[in-house]
Each structure stands twice: as C-alpha cells, then as structure tokens.
C-alpha cells in the first residue's frame, strides 16, 4: 500500500444540540482548521464556530452599484452622444425612461456576480475530488447525521490526540480520512489525445455550422432576408399578367404625359399678354364660376375685393392691389399668365385650377376692377 497522506479525522453526532456543543468545544480547544458538516444549515452554528460575518453583502453592493452605473452610463452614451434620435419628443437623455433598464441590470449583476463570486472564490467549487467525497462520513452527513472534521493542516493536529479528543466529546464512528493519491498526482496534460480530438471536432462542427448557416440557410426561405419577394418587378416577366408580359404595362391609348401640357408662353408674360384672348364670354354663369373660384383660391391673399386686405394680413407679404393702373392696363392674357406661372411670392395655381376656371377668374377680376372704378353710367 502506498503512502497515504492524511487529510483529517472525522466524528459523527446524532442531534443538532450535540453538534452545537461539539463545535463550541472544538473551537475552544484551539483548533482553527476544522469544519462541521450537516445536511442542512444549523441555527447558531456560525456563532458556535465563531465564523465572521459573511462578506457576500459587500460583494452584492459593489456588483449592484457597478451594474447600475454601467447600465446608466451606457444608455446615456449611446442615446445621448453616439446616435441621438428624437423619440416621442423626449430629451436625448430621458432619465425616467432609463430607470427600468438600470434597475434590471443592477439586480442581474448583483445576483449573478455575487453567486459566482461565492461559488468560485469563496467555496472554490466545482471540486469533485475533495478527500471527503465518497467517504462513509459524507454519506452520513448528507443524509441524517452531523459531523465534525479536524484537518491535519491544523497546527495542533496529532492523529492520536485528535481521535481521543473526539471520543471525549461524544463523537461516534471516528474515521481517519486520507487524500486520494490518484487525485493528488493528477497532472493536466494539454496534449492528451481525447482533448485534442475534442478540440478538433468542435472546431470542425462550429465552422461547418457557421458556414452552413451564413451561406446556405440564410438564402433559404424563410430566412433569406426578404430577398425573394412576391412582388411585381418592372423589367421582369410577370406571373400575374401572363407569359411574355412584363409587370410594367404599356400605357393605354390616349394617355397624355404629365408634362405634355406645357404652358406655351412660360417665361414670356408680354407674349401671353399679346397673344392670349379670353375664350369665355362674361355671362352671369361664367362670372359666378369665376367668383366662386376667386373666393376660394385668390381671396386668402388678395382679399374678396382684390384690394389686398386679406385675412392673411401680416403673415404673408400683402399683394399689391389688383385695381392699380398697371394691372388694369394688363391684357387678359397677362392676368392668365400670372395665375398660371405665379410671380414674386405668389405660386403657380396650375395644379389647382383648370384653364377654363382660370379664364373665369380673369372675367371676375375684370368685373371687380370695373366695380372699383365705376362710372356714372355703370349704375344705370
């Protein structure tokens, strides 16, 4: 039998009261490297073993504050500086809206961080090759007994004395625990063939999967990024309109292009004045049409009587009066030109009025001009 290195000596107790008093006695006898094992936490044991307060609260505080600060800072930077967008009219750094995420990240980091710190740093778990594993002692304390283990690393340790001591405080089933030499001597070999094979296989699997996903799967429906869409493309043969037909259809007969009705005298008001003649006769019907259209389209700026006293007074530059000498001397064509092309602040009204309507307005304007400069005989 090879030389076994001793880990410690264990003893079993039956009741919680016994284990509490045993713990107190072990501690007061001066042992530092010892432990108590039980299937569940015993009230008052930390005090009996004189363990200090758990540091986990501080871990939680630090992790939590870090999480809070990090989340808030990240959101502030991303939404306030990196790519600010106006969302619902809120400020770029809307503090109330940042609170929920900040809170969640605080809790997440505090909880997970503290747990991981506890497991890895404080407990140094996972560790399945501790000398106490697989012993009868462990089988008992994980079920229904309570135990004390005094480690050999303790300064006051002496195998025989410790066994006597444990007997004296009432321990049963006293057992000496040894290290598992195999576990102790285990050396990590980085070139172990199983590990290398595992690395190679995982590299192959991962790269293969990545290739398939990014180059094949992405182009298969439904993942192909809406690349293939059931829509009608102009230059492509259309399924909808039948074989040999493009989705882009030929215009039906009689279609006139939008810009085909160009105003002949565009940019040439004198020519319009000279060449254009009002095709409409000043009948009551035409004048009424003109009045109606004038009231709708012209009165906002020119006023109802053409004086320029419009209800947009002040908000838009007031137009000069239509009863000035200049305008009264214009030909009908010139007025038609101004309505069609606009001038200065006045826009073109071609998109709102048909040519016929414009001529009717010209009639009405003439009527207004005559009314403004009425002579004796007009009243008769």
């Amino acid at each position, binding site marked *: 039998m090879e030389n076994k290195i001793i880990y410690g000596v264990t003893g079993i107790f039956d009741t919680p009261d016994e284990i509490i008093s045993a713990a107190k006695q072990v501690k007061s006898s001066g042992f530092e490297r010892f*432990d108590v094992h039980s299937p569940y936490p015993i009230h008052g044991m930390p005090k009996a073993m004189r363990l200090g307060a758990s540091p986990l609260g501080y871990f939680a505080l630090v992790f939590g504050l870090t999480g809070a600060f990090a989340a808030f800072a990240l959101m502030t930077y991303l939404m306030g500086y*990196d790519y600010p967008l106006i969302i619902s009219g809120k400020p770029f750094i809307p503090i109330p809206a940042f609170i*929920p995420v900040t809170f969640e990240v605080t809790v997440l980091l505090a909880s997970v961080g503290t747990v991981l710190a*506890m497991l890895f740093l404080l407990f140094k778990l996972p560790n399945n090759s501790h000398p106490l594993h697989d012993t009868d002692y462990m*089988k008992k304390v994980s079920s*229904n007994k309570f135990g004390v283990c005094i480690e050999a690393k303790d300064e006051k340790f002496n195998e025989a004395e410790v066994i006597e001591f444990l007997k004296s405080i009432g321990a049963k089933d006293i057992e000496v625990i040894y290290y598992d030499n195999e576990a102790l001597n285990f050396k990590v070999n980085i070139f172990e063939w199983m590990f290398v094979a595992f690395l190679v296989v995982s590299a192959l699997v991962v790269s293969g999967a990545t290739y398939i996903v990014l180059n094949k799967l992405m182009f298969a429906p439904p993942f192909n990024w809406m690349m293939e869409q059931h829509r009608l493309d102009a230059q492509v043969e259309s399924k909808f309109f039948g074989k040999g037909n493009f989705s882009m259809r030929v215009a039906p007969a009689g279609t006139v292009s939008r810009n085909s009705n160009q105003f002949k005298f565009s940019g040439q008001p004198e020519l319009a004045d000279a060449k254009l003649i009002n095709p409409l006769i000043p009948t009551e019907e035409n004048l009424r049409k003109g009045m109606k259209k004038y009231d709708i389209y012209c009165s906002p700026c020119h006023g109802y009587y053409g004086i320029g006293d419009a209800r947009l007074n002040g908000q838009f530059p007031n137009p000069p009066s239509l009863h000035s000498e200049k305008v009264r001397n214009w030909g009908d064509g010139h007025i038609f030109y101004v309505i069609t092309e606009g001038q200065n602040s006045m826009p073109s009204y071609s998109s709102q009025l048909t040519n016929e309507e414009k001529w009717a307005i010209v009639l009405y304007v003439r009527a207004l001009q005559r009314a403004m400069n009425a002579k004796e005989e007009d009243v008769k």
Partner: protein
Amino acid sequence: MSIEVLKEPSVIEGKPTFVEIDEQISSPIDKSPNIKYLIALGITSTMLLIGVISIGATFFYGIGLWGNNNPVGWAFDIINFVFWVGIGHAGTLISAILFLFRQKWRTGIARFAEGMTIFAVMTAALFPLIHVGRPWLAGYLFPYPNQHHLWVNFTSPLLWDVFAVSTYFTVSFVFWYIGLIPDFATLRDRAKSGVKKVIYSILSLGWRFSNRHWHNYEMIYLILAGFATPLVLSVHTIVSFDFAVSIMPGWHTTIFPPYFVAGAVFSGFAMVQNVLIIIRKIFNFEHIITLDTLEKMNKIMLATGSMVGYAYGMEFFIAWYSGSQFESFVFINRAFGPYAWAYWIMVSCNVVFPQLFWFKKIRRNIPIMFVIAVLVNVGMWFERFVIIVTSLAHDFMPSSWAYYKPTLVDFGILIGSSGLFFTLLLLFIKAMPVISIAEVKAVLDGAQPHHHTHNGGRNGK
C-alpha cells in the same frame, strides 16, 4: 383558551425522519416512469407538438396565419406572453417573498414553485420572440455594436421587457439552482448507478455540506431573495408599462403596475395550487404539501383577487371622473359591446368566484378549491384578452374599428405553450427533487438546536 389554539400546526406532518425524507422525495426520481406518468407525458407532448407545428408554420408563412388585423395588432401573442409571465410570479413570491417573511410553510412547495417559474418564463419568452415575424433577427434586440451603427431604443418598454424577462429568468434560474446544489449532493451520495453518480457530482459542483459554506449559503439565499422580490415586482410592472405608457384609453392608466403584479400573483397561485394538488396526490406528498399550505395559498389568492377587484373599481370610477369620453366609452364597451361575453367571464371568474374563499370550509375543500383555481386561471387569461383586444378593437375613431377573431394557428400556439409548460414540469418531476430536501429537513420538529431565549436588544439593549 385551550392549548390547541396556541400550538401552531407542524409544517411537516407525521414526524418523518431524515432518511424517510430522503427516500420520499427521491422516490419519483429513483423509480422508472409508470403508465400514468407516460400517458400524462404523452398528452402534454402532443400538445407541445401541436404548438411546434403551429409555430413552424408561422415562421414559414408569416404572421398572416394569425388572426391579428388592423387595428388589433396585438392579440393572442401578447395575451399569452402576459399570462405566462404572470404564472411565473407565484413561484418567486413563494420562494423569495415568503422566505423574507419567514413563513415556514413555504418549504414544502418552494422548489416546485420555482421550477414552475422557470418553465413559465421560458414559455412566456417564446411569444415576444415569435410575434416579431422574423425571430431569427432577435439578436438585434440586444445592444451590440453593429454595421448599421444602430442601437436599440432604450426608452421603449418593449426593450425593457427584454431586459426584465431575461434578468428574471436568469436570477430565478440561479436561485433555483443554488437551492438544488445541496439536494444534488444528497442524491450523489445516495446514487447506486455510476452514471447517475457522475451526473449528480457534476451538478452538485462537489458540495460538501460544510457549515462554513452553509453560513455563506444562507447569506446568498437571503440576498437572492432580497433581490428577487423587487425583481419580480419590476418584471410585471414593466410588462404593464407595455400598455400603460401608451395613450390608448383603457391602457393608459396609472394603476396598471400594482394591478398587473397583483393579478400575476393571483393567477400564478391558482396554477401552482392546481398543479400541487395533482402532484401531492400522485406522489403521496400530502404530509409535506399539507392542507394548511393549500389553505394559506387560497388566502393569498383571495387577497390578490380582491386587489384586482379594487383595480377594476378604480379604473371604472376614474373613467367616469376623468371626463374623457374615450375612456368612459372603453369601459362601457367592455361590458356591453361585442366582447361583452369575454368581459363577464373575466369578472365572474376573477371577482365573484374567489370570494368563496372567505369561507374556511371552502378553503379546505380540495375539489372545490381546484375548480375555483381553474376558473381563476381562465378569468385571468380573459382579463388580458379583454384589456388588449377591446381597447385595440374599438379605439378613438369608429372608422378604425374592427372585430378580432383568432385562427386555428393562434389556438395551436396557445395549446402548444401549455404543452411546453407541462412537459417541462413532468420532466422536472422525474429528473430532480421537486421538494427541497435540505430545507424540509431544516424545518422538521427537532431539527434545530434548542436555544435559550436570546436577548438581542431586550429592554433597550
């Protein structure tokens, strides 16, 4: 006053020994599944399969397979999401909040309830994922540097949901797992087969039952419970923000956060109670999941159901008081419009039937309490239906109104979600201890040392 009044009933009845606890709780795991279990698993797996097919079809053909229309853009997808997240809340409440209140009666049910939380949250998380239409782009929900130079909208409650639900899942999982470590270690030491021993050794991380570790373990449990409590409140609050931050009448109302949380606890407890009644019967856990425990759960249902009723009343009153015709209309429309049938199911199941729990006889009668809890679950599902669908279907402009009808695919996904939840639960029962072995042992009579009255601060010290 007789002594019986003074004595509190034992948390665990019958005075089992530690070894008996080990055996009783491990027995479902040790035994191979019997025919009843296999039939149950068959049923839930079929339900799950229906869901998988429905979801697969949805992925392939698109959300058009659902009944969602304009204006009812959210329907079964979000109803189911809120429903399942709510179910999860009972677990955390039992685990964390009852722990903080030092209620020992939680011991028998805490592990199971936590498991239900995790499975419910997993089921719930499906819905935001599948309802976006192209779930494979879900990575964009997380803020990572990308070539579009775009970030997520941190001010949107939909994004808060992403953080809240993932945090809730992670923390619940960690809490549950920490609780399982000592039990895995116990199972490791009891394991006869080599394979089981290896699995439990890995899962238990090598836990040694050292009191130096228990000391910190208790602290982490308290810390996790202390964090899980505001977390669970925040999760359903953030879910309620999905609706309440809008301007929709019927959605935009300040009482939504506590109302949703109370409703979540209400429906969660109903589901937990139902499942526990079945479990305790099948696995003979009646002395651990006692009638007293069930009665206390019914009381919690009564309390939270009353809070939900209060919220209904307040919403109704303020809808009138506010003077907003849109708000008043929504409430009248709920009660008398095209979805009145859903509204009255909701009111009767949530407000009327749970009031029966005022009576002790009913609180302690298992068949009746089972039925009431089923009705509560139905009622709470309909509450989300009423809130979401009626507000959307009849909002501001009558010209935008439309009636929503779910399709078979919608129902398939709903059935599938239940299938997922119950399948996971059944698998859980066979694979892990559904009752916390270590915690139960710790609350048995005689498990803790008798300590003399310690005077921490008596009379001014």
